[in-house]
């Protein structure tokens, strides 16, 4: 006869306000096999856990049911509590009476009865639990960092400095990301390049960091501590090892009118190019879409001129396989497409530009060498209108969220413009000014009070051209909703930060989840902000949500700390919830008939073939075997097995049927 203890948690008001917890405990006490049943306000607190520990010792419990929140939340907590009291952790089960009951139903007897039923089912299950022990797996102490923006750079350096190997993969020809495109940074106005480029060099020179630039993740298999990544090194058409970065090739390249990605299309580059002079690595790449040799077959000037013979038109993509123990995803964000704002004429009027384009105009390394000149005719604009929330916080545009960085960079833009053009007028249309952050609000006040940026609270409905000016039609909601028309020379849209194109595809490769805006989801919005729901994969920077530089760097260091903690152990304990194939004594050996349907459906390639042999070495037949290191316990094979030869430890067919029968 079992000796089960039932512990019903109120979770403060979360469960207690809806479910009569005392009654659930009382009803559970009479279930066959239950020898102890109590309720308590916070079972996860120290006194609550003590109740469990004491009951295990005093009542000699051989199974524990905690009726509380989701097992995702506190199953590890209570399993640990049980093992501390000498009971195998896997003899503890949770009945989820919060998410599955109190949160989704109204208060009442029916709800309480449902909670009691959930407990009853779990009691039946736990009676059939077997003690399991954690599976120990080794850890590959190399981290894979995806994305070489400031977040990826910071994470790489932190991990590398803690003594572990890092493989940094960047899809563009150079690391640096969006930050390398910025002019000055708020709230201190220090130059973005000046603080970033030393970090980029550090990455390139760090003995623990291997940089794969112009490369992308092809696939990722395995599990925490033991991933195998396939990285596609896109063909640069330039042999990096031979190239000395002299730059002669791009100087002489005849295709010179290709919009430069680094200058946000405000300047041109050549077909063979280094994105910007401070690029790391400072090695060119050929853009085969625009290269004359690749489009027409004629040219090859770069190849003729290269003093080291580094140009290699035949170079093909290369796939590199690496073993890593953890992954930091720091793939950044994107900017909305031109067609997003027909009403603002973005894409139609040359002088309606995005915030990122303004950064290039204001940057000393930009197309105008830092002078604010408008793109259409190169003149200095006398009136500039900045539009905050261009797309953000607008559910009609499908972006109800706040892009978070725009209030600050718009204030910075207005300030930079006024610093360079004292007589110019800067207007800022805004909804609210969101300047939460150290020295942030002071910064915005400075733009308004000292630099006289003219802030107008209201939205802009349309921008159109009239007699060579851009007419910005808006409303001033603080002056009686007065319609307003400003004749501007240039308009800067603080465009919404959106997920990177291809974010969903990457998430699927990594088996991590993403939200409805395709930003990657953290494991817990408050308490696990840098982890994903897939163990061993961490997040840093704006791929999770729009973030500014300080926040991205903080999260990157957080992710690096998580990786370092993971790598601090020689081996990892994994949940023993894995499938196993039936085995028994001869002459049957196993129920498995060797059809290997399980092998075809296993998403983790965990099914192996095993040859059964008699004691004298004669082959009996080939049956399936599960590699517990690869199995993730999804149970697909169990559902498919026609002879019920496969079962999932911790979730056996017997246990699940017992749960269902308990309801009947």
């Amino acid at each position, binding site marked *: 006869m079992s000796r089960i203890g039932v512990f019903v948690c109120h979770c403060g008001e979360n469960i207690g306000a809806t479910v009569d917890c005392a009654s659930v405990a009382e009803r559970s006490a009479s279930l066959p096999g239950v020898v102890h049943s109590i309720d308590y306000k916070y079972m996860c607190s120290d006194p609550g856990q003590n109740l469990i520990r004491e009951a295990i010792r005093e009542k000699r419990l051989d199974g524990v049911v905690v009726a509380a929140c989701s097992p995702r939340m506190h199953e590890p907590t209570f399993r640990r509590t049980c093992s501390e009291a000498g009971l195998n952790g896997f003899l503890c089960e949770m009945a989820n009476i919060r998410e599955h009951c109190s949160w989704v139903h109204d208060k009442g007897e029916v709800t309480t009865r449902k909670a009691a039923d959930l407990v009853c089912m779990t009691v039946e299950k736990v009676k059939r639990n077997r003690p399991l022990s954690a599976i120990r797996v080794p850890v590959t102490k190399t981290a894979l960092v995806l994305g070489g923006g400031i977040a990826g750079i910071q994470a790489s350096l932190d991990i590398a400095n803690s003594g572990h190997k890092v493989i940094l993969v960047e899809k563009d020809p150079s690391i640096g990301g969006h930050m390398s495109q910025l002019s000055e940074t708020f709230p201190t106005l220090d130059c973005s390049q000046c603080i970033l480029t030393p970090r980029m060099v550090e990455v390139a020179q760090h003995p623990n960091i291997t940089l794969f630039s112009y490369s992308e993740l092809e696939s990722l298999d395995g599990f925490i501590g033991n991933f195998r990544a396939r990285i596609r090194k896109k063909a640069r058409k330039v042999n990096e090892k031979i190239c000395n970065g002299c730059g002669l090739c791009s100087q002489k390249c005849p295709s010179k009118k290709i919009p430069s990605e680094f200058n946000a299309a405000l300047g041109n580059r050549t077909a063979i190019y280094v994105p910007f002079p401070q690029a790391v690595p400072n090695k060119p790449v050929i853009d085969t879409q625009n290269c004359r040799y690749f489009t027409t077959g004629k040219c090859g000037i770069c190849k003729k001129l290269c003093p080291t013979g580094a140009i290699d038109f035949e170079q093909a993509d290369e796939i590199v396989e690496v073993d890593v123990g953890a992954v930091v995803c720091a793939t950044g964000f994107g900017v909305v497409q031109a067609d997003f704002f*027909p*009403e603002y004429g973005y894409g*139609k009027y040359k002088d309606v530009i995005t915030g990122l384009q303004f950064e290039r105009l204001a940057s000393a390394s930009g197309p105008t060498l830092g002078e604010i000149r408008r793109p259409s005719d190169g003149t200095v604009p006398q009136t500039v209108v900045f539009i905050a929330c261009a797309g953000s916080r607008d559910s*009609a545009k499908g972006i109800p969220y706040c892009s978070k960085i725009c209030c600050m960079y718009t204030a910075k833009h207005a300030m930079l413009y006024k610093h360079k053009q004292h007589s110019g007028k800067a207007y800022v249309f805004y909804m609210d000014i969101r300047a939460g952050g150290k020295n942030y609000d002071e910064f915005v006040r400075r733009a308004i009070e000292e630099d006289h940026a003219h802030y107008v609270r209201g939205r802009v409905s*349309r921008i*159109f*051209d*009239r007699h060579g000016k851009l*007419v910005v039609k808006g409303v001033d909601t603080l002056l009686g909703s007065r319609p307003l028309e400003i004749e501007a020379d240039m308009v800067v849209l603080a465009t919404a930060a959106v997920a990177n194109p291809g974010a969903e595809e990457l998430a699927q490769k990594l088996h991590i989840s993403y939200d409805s805006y395709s930003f990657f989801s953290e494991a817990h919005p408050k308490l696990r902000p840098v982890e994903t729901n897939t163990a061993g994969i961490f997040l840093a920077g704006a791929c999770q949500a729009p973030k500014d530089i300080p926040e991205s760097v903080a999260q990157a260091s957080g992710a690096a700390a998580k990786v370092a903690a993971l790598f601090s152990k020689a081996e990892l304990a994994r949940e023993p919830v894995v499938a196993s194939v039936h085995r028994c004594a001869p002459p049957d050996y196993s129920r498995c008939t060797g059809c290997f349907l399980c092998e075809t459906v296993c998403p983790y390639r965990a099914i192996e073939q095993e040859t059964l042999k008699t004691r004298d070495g004669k082959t009996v037949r080939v049956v399936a075997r599960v590699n517990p290191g690869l199995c993730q316990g999804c149970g697909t094979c169990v559902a498919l097995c026609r002879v019920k030869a496969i079962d999932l430890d911790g979730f056996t067919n017997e246990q699940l049927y017992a749960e269902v029968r308990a309801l009947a």
Partner: protein
Amino acid sequence: MVVQIGYFPGCSLQGSSREFEQSLKALAEKLGVSLEEIPDWNCCGASAAHNLNNELGLALPARILIQAERAGLEEILVPCAACFSRLASTVHELNKHASVRRHLADVLGAEYGGKTRPINILEFLGRFFPEGQGPEVIQPLACKVACYYGCLLVRPTEIVGRDRPEDPQEMDRLMSRVGAEPIDWAFKVDCCGAGLTIPRPDLVARLSGAILEDATSRGAQIIVLACPMCHTNLDMRRADIERFTGKRYTIPAIYVTQAIAYALGVPAGELGLKRHLVPINLEKLRAGDAGPASAPATSQ
């Protein structure tokens, strides 16, 4: 083959904007569509009812929908932009709130079954005059046109569900098809002043004036539109507009149905163009005349 479709003319098309109906019917015949008028229809309530009394604002269009349903009409063409907006909004409300549907059933003694759907003139033309199909263009409208959508033809987005509500292109594409050159301009979805034409003609003068000014300054020779209210303001309120802006505007405003029907060969005399206050001579425009105010008339 003649396709049958429901038709709700509303007050304007049988009153002040009879030329809209006249040209629509001529065009429908060319397109092989027979318009089945809803029996015993009533006023849709625009523009007053929904502002004064929500129940009335929904009950009037609901009764029209019920009448159409009883007559077995699944789709009803509602050419007037204001009528369309009222009917589409009512369908939206009724589908969204079962309680509103039940309440109106009590008021009207009959319930809207959800089978009838209003379609506006752009959807109608998109469907029955699709790209690359339909009757041949006989008299191409070889002139620059400003396509004016106004407020209600493409908005509100969640009810009308057209893409690019801030910069619609459907009418522009239709005009290109019939040989006209649609201009890119800034006021295609701005408000003309609408119903304020009676209480606040000064506001209408300002708003409609801006529309005429922009269209003219960008070289348009005709404004093409699809709303009786817009037409009234842009055609009939010229004196107020000109007094307000101090400028004279000779650019005519015509209905999209007049423009297309003409291009498909309906004689200009059968399109009700004479009912407009601002004179228009499509023959002259077609002959490559720069504008109605300049150059001597050339006969074709």
